């Protein structure tokens, strides 16, 4: 087995009970070719400083817990390998734009509230009894929303969105992508209930079309597409209300 080489990992640390603001701390970590950034952090926590705080769970880019800024880019730390960041130093901080609770742990409360608000579940277009059988869908109907189902709520897109950083009331790319996932589903009939969220100032109209959210998405959800195609939907909804006063969301 090859000898591990050391790599310097700098972490932005913050413990609100004694730090007025976050500060960088440096660690020397033995690094092998198969080590992810997450494993580097686990080495620091297990061997050097047990007070380091960070979230992780699956280690296989599916739980969405371990998002952080790695050398300034929003990344899943389990999916980012130290060998690609040689010779270092590797700078790690909590996801940008989100409030830091402790070290690499961000406050996800706002995100969860927004997610709840968009009713992220199927609201059946028409009620069916079990005897009527399953809802049928063609492959073309599936393709209209399938990519948006891949979202793992990792919030990398929020760390990539300067509009969210400037105005944290913005619903944001991830939640709008999930909203669109249900609106675009042929089985769903909840668009009229979700439309006011899209139409609001903090909805799609806050997006400046930077497009970085889609670049950093580890699941190719393309949230920028979900947000921007709903600008047209929102504009149509606005003008149609003059023709059909009872609200004529298509």
């Amino acid at each position, binding site marked *: 087995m090859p000898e591990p080489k050391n790599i310097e990992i700098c972490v932005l640390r913050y413990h609100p009970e*004694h*730090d007025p603001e976050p500060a960088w701390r440096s660690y020397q970590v033995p690094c092998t070719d198969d080590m992810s950034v997450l494993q580097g952090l686990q080495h620091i926590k297990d061997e050097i400083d047990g007070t380091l705080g960070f979230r992780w769970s699956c280690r296989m880019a599916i739980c969405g817990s371990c998002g952080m800024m790695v050398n300034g880019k929003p990344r899943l730390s389990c999916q980012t390998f130290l060998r690609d960041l040689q010779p270092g130093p590797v700078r790690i901080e909590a996801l940008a734009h989100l*409030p*830091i609770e402790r070290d690499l742990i961000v406050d996800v409360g706002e995100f969860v509230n927004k997610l709840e608000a968009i009713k992220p579940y199927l609201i059946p277009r028409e009620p069916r009894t079990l005897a009527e059988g399953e809802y049928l869908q063609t492959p073309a109907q599936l393709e209209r929303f399938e990519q948006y189902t891949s979202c793992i709520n990792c919030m990398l897109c929020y760390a990539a969105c300067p509009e969210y950083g400037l105005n944290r009331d913005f619903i944001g790319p991830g939640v709008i992508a999930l909203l669109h996932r249900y609106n675009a589903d042929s089985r769903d009939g909840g668009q009229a209930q979700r439309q006011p969220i899209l139409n609001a100032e903090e909805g799609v109209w806050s997006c400046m079309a*930077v497009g970085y959210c889609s670049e950093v998405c580890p699941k190719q959800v393309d949230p920028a597409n979900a947000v921007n195609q709903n600008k047209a939907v929102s504009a149509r909804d606005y003008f149609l209300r003059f023709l059909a006063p009872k609200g004529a969301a298509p």
Partner: protein
Amino acid sequence: MNLDGGVPRPFVRPMRGWWRRDPFFVRYMLRELTAVAVLAYAVVLAVGVVRLSQGEVAWNGWLAALRAPWSIVLHVLILAAMAVHAWSWFQIMPKTLPMIFVGGRRLAGATITRAGWLATALTSIALFALARWWQS
């Protein structure tokens, strides 16, 4: 110590200078800046319309000003900015459109971008042809 009534307070990092933080943001700001060049050229054309309404002498004066060296330099700069503007606009265009299906298959983003350039080329050729026809 960063406590709010004994409760640890989350730290919100400042956004000052955010657009310098990542090359992607710098390119975005450049794209937005080119909109100023589009505005500048609209102003040049609007001045032409005003001068036209003021009679032949004013109109000829505007035409002469367009041929001045500083005006040529300005036009070259605006043309370059317009090219960047068009390039960045066609790059982001697939993100702004709903999914397009042709023959049951989804149209790729790169195809939409290329279609934008094709439309630009065709309209530019048509415009030059019209100008030539007008002169002859």
